[in-house]
């Protein structure tokens, strides 16, 4: 491409890509800042989703969302479908989850609706010394969205800017 300075079209060819690249660079930097870094001890209220699948030294296997983890304990949010004899009861002003007459371990948090089913969420704490092994997993939705966005959003922005400018 021959550039002729003073020519409007030529000048536009020289200036626009630089400006557009600058805009893209700024957008990239801003986008990098969208990622959040959440301490493992504050996962619950942050909205960041980490799943944990663990086995205790007693042989119990548990899968749930990680609420917090530190050197002493791991707190996991567990979901129990409210069906059959599993229900939330209030005794002495304290709500708890019961299966029949037996109180299920954990602190009752709330009732959610999952695909039409009522689900009770309880937070259960485990001592780290009682945990035999655990694996940590990403949210499936977040992983797939991340792939889609990084694969399509970048080229879409770049292509759109080139067309516009």
């Amino acid at each position: 491409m021959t550039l002729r300075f003073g020519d409007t079209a030529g000048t536009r060819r020289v200036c626009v890509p630089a400006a557009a690249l600058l805009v893209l660079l700024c957008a990239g930097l801003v986008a990098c800042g969208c990622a959040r870094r959440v301490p493992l001890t504050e996962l619950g209220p942050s909205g960041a989703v980490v799943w944990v699948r663990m086995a205790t030294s007693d042989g119990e296997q548990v899968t749930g969302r990680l609420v917090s983890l530190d050197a002493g304990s791991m707190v996991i949010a567990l979901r129990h479908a409210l069906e059959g004899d599993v229900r939330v009861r209030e005794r002495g002003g304290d709500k708890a989850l019961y299966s029949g007459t037996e109180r299920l371990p954990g602190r009752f948090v709330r009732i959610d609706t999952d695909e039409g089913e009522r689900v009770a969420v309880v937070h259960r704490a485990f001592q780290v010394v009682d945990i035999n092994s655990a694996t940590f997993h990403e949210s499936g939705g977040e992983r797939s969205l991340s792939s889609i966005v990084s694969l399509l959003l970048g080229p879409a922005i770049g292509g759109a800017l080139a067309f516009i400018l």
Partner: protein
Amino acid sequence: MTEAHGSTRGVFATVRLARLILAGGLLAGFIAMLSGCAATSPENFVEEPGVTVRIVRTSGDSFSGTLIGMDDGVLIVDRSVPKSSSITVVRNDGVDVVYRDDTPIGRAMEIRGVDIVVRERLAFFEIDDIRVVSKAYFGWGTAIAAVLAFLLVQVLQDM
């Protein structure tokens, strides 16, 4: 004559702004639709273990890695270590052990062209701060893809 030029520039600027707003709206709608496609049940998680974390050791150095799990109260983290003269890999009883300056730092999970994926076992007392990297939808890959697409469209337009 000057007034006519100014008027034409104004029209072009308005058209460009309208295009910009239209493209932005389309992109926003596109992303919103994708978000809907990616929405899954709360019970859905990736089977393969691994969560991106940023770790600061009590010694002061920090690094990014993948938190795999916990075993006997010790966190298991995979991290990339660049190959260098201070890094050696020694096979011991069928296990590739990575040494930095003759100090073992972990097991080599994968030896690649420029780096080694090392699996380290970190006790809690060795960790000053550990943070989960969440919602990292955008990154340098997205930015680079945007620049490449921009240049590609420019080239195609010039042809």
